[in-house]
């Protein structure tokens, strides 16, 4: 029996606005608990929401980037439920009149290129956060996040594998980053993903009971959770126990590597959606859409093509560099200084990525300005220091913020490019290694490699390798002919 997997995603992204959706509190992450709150976002009786226009503009921008139809008039609704993380006992969201409908994202995996359709995008407020103190029965509430603007992006059930789901989320994330829509920090929860998954026999054209998966906080967890749930459902089908697949929400437990039931359809809440009468309709006219369209930045797909054509980068390099908005901007700033694109890509994908990972920094937090890296690359290209020394200098620049010239001077890393000095070192090395010399004369060519190593060591790595090799070869020729 072969099966087809049907996956749809619901993605929540926190919008990059300075203030919250309905009040002027900062929307930033990382403040002290309940520091970013006011009577409005705390739902103090009598207070009323006022819609943040910046958030509306970002939602429209998202819609334009994702090829959606923008609603000329949409409406905010109330979703009613009791839970301490929503201080008003309702979330202000959009129900049947969302701000964007339709749209799509094109994805590429090693197997397929495919267009994934979107169902809708709507605007809503985030909830606060509950912190349960272990073994004390006490829970604390932090309302800093309450009222932070979110968009929810809902796909059609167009994805056919965990790999496609990950490819979609990566493509979407990069588009949202490019558009300046959201920070998309999955680990901080500014980008969150839920997945709906069901199976069907290959060739069928029906939608079977789907299961909703929650707590998918990284690409890796999304991949693993979907693969796991796919397998779980497949086993049930194979054993004729598909009746045990019920419409429910399952939580992915990353540590145990399995999904566990959270709630079934029977205990689904009745949210009693109805229009939010404290806010008027959200009206978006064509002029505003035009205005927003004019501010749309270059999207990853276009940038990929440009990087291929303009800089001659390889697909794999492009995927990584353009896949990350900050990296691609860094790369362009670097080449704008005059760095050769190939060298630039090598530096970014090599030493830079390694150091970012070591320091746990994001690509937006590179401590070495592009013009400083350019200077370093120039020093190396001019042969003033070796590549090995260059890497050492870069790591020093990365850690201390000092510039390349100072570090090179202070550490005495400048290469020895002085012929007479190099000749003296090489003479010493040859005198100390007569055996290698005779090996070479006897035709063992790798003796030269050994001697080069000795020369580098004797010069403490500062010998200009090209020049040193030239002199060594001259000397070896002389030695052989003189024998």
């Amino acid at each position, binding site marked *: 029996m072969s099966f087809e997997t049907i996956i749809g995603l619901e993605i929540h992204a926190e919008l990059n606005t300075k203030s919250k959706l309905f009040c002027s509190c900062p929307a930033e992450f990382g403040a002290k608990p309940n520091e970013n709150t006011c*009577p409005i976002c*705390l*739902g*103090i*009786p*009598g*207070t*009323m*929401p*006022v*819609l943040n226009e910046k958030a509306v503009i970002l939602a429209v921008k998202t819609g334009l980037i994702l090829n959606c139809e923008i609603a000329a008039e949409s409406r905010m609704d*109330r979703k*009613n439920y*009791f839970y*301490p993380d929503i*201080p*008003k*006992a*309702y979330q202000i969201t959009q129900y049947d009149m969302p701000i964007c409908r339709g749209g799509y994202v094109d994805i590429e995996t090693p197997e397929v290129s495919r267009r994934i359709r979107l169902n809708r995008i709507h605007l809503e407020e985030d909830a606060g956060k509950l912190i349960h103190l272990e073994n004390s029965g006490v*829970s604390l*509430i932090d309302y800093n996040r309450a009222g932070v603007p979110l968009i929810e992006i809902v796909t059609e059930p167009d994805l056919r594998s965990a790999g496609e789901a990950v490819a979609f989320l990566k493509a979407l994330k990069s588009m949202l980053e490019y558009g300046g829509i959201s920070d998309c920090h999955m680990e901080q929860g500014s980008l969150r993903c839920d997945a709906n998954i069901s199976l069907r026999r290959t060739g069928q054209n029906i939608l079977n009971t789907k299961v909703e998966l929650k707590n998918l906080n990284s690409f890796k967890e999304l991949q693993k959770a979907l693969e796991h749930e796919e397998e779980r459902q497949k086993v049930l089908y194979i054993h004729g126990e598909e009746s045990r697949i019920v419409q429910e929400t399952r939580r992915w437990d990353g540590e145990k590597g399995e999904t566990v039931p959270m709630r079934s359809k029977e205990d689904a809440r*009745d949210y*009693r*959606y*109805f229009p939010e*009468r*404290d*806010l*008027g309709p959200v009206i978006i006219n064509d002029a505003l859409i035009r205005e927003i369209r004019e501010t749309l930045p270059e999207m990853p797909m276009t940038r990929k093509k440009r990087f291929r054509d303009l800089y001659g980068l390889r697909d794999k390099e492009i995927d990584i560099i353009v896949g990350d908005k900050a990296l691609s901007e860094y790369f362009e700033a670097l080449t704008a200084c005059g760095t050769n694109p190939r060298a630039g890509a090598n530096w970014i994908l090599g030493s830079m990525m390694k150091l970012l990972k070591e320091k746990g920094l994001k690509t937006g937090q590179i401590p070495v300005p592009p013009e400083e890296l350019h200077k370093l690359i120039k020093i190396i290209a001019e042969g003033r220091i070796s590549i090995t020394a260059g890497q050492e200098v870069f790591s020093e620049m990365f850690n201390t913020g000092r510039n390349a010239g100072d570090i090179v001077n202070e550490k005495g890393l400048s290469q020895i490019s002085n012929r007479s000095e190099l000749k003296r070192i090489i003479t010493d090395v040859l005198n100390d290694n007569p055996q290698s010399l005779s090996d070479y004369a006897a035709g063992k060519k790798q003796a030269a490699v050994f001697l080069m190593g000795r020369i580098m060591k004797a010069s403490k790595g500062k010998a200009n390798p090209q020049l040193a090799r030239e002199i060594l070869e001259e000397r070896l020729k002389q030695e052989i002919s003189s024998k």
Partner: protein
Amino acid sequence: MSIHEMTAFEIRKGIVKRQFSARDVVTAFFDRIYEKEPLVDGFLTLCREEALTKAEQIDRKIQRGEQLGKLGGIPIAVKDNICTDGIRTTCASRMLHDFIPPYDATVVKRLKEADAVIIGKTNMDEFAMGSSTENSAFKNTKNPWDREIVPGGSSGGSAAVVSAGMAALALGSDTGGSIRQPAAFCGVVGLKPTYGLVSRFGLIAFGSSLDQIGPLAKNIKDSALALEAIQGKDKYDSTSVRHSITKDYMSTIESSVKGMKIGVPVEFFDSGLDEEIAFSIKGCIKKLKEIGAFVEDISLPITEEGLSAYYIISSAEASSNLGRFDGLRYGYRTKDYSSLDQLVERSRSEGFGEEVKRRIMLGTFALSSGYYDAYYSTAQKLRARIKEQFIKVFENYDILLSPVSPVLPFKIGEKVANPLEMYLSDIYTVNINLAGLPAISMPCGISNTGLPIGLQIIGPHFGEEKLFKAAYALEQELKPTAMHPML
């Protein structure tokens, strides 16, 4: 004339002319309150210290020769569902018995900017749900005209204290008649402005699409004065008017009603209406004709469907608005719970009164899946139709006349056992809220039993100017200043 008998206008004038100080005014009103409040029970909180401090500020302003605000030195009472920074705001509910707002409602801010003196917070039906103020969790307010009679509701406290001379002005809120009906019952002037003319920010919401704050006053001019001070755009209320209205009603209030076209909807005078009320209103119609207005009967067949639409919509909105009272962050919390669900359930069961719970359940039901279309959606459609009908009528008429209440003020306890009968007393007022129109309730006669009778004048959207003009002209004819309770 003692100070407490003066109108708001007269008080401000007296202070400006230095006939008496603002402090004298506050003292006079508190003397009156100490004497009469035990008989009326109109207040839930008194703010004597704050009032005296404010009065001293005003007196200093006068001494320095500074300009006094529109409501300079006028003692005003505020309904207890309007938030006052640092002053307890209870909604007459056990749920909020100790709630002290951390901010001022926009209208309160505007009162303060206009140099009004807030003297206290008034009793009401719990969360403004009721028509007799008997749903207060704390006490029954008595009608100053007869202490066995209700003051109406839900702004019963505000109407009673103005009527009893314990405040020169008061603010109330009107979701389905809650300013106009108590004004009629207590023989004062109550205005429900056009939806959006006065900011709702800081009004603890009952039905967000219907609620509107408005003044209760001794006469029409005082009412217009108070509206001038509180009206206009507020950036904290997205449903408030977009344009900044700075209408000055005084310049037109005394102009003639000659040629004014007045419609009288016959459906508002059907068999359910008390005969004495009908008689009084007919008297008013006659007077208006005498002074040159053009009055004729019209048909507006909306009263009964309006009432059901109103109860569904207001309860639906209330069920959501009152969700936040869960005992977690503020307000009443049950003593006895062992889980979060139990805490919320018991706090709400114990903190809310019967009428509030009845409406929350009604509203929850009307919004629940499977019933939404039959109730909430249908009610919204009715509402749209009612609004359309009014707008059409106002193409041909300047204002409409109707009764405020179908019944005369009733006895305390008379209708508590029968909520449906109580709901029926809103039949002539709720449609105005559904349509978002302005309407004013003014005294127009006295019954054989010695109780006030009210007349309702309804205007087109933002037609307050017309209301005041017609009401003032009629007031001059009726001389209702002679009408005040023998307390």
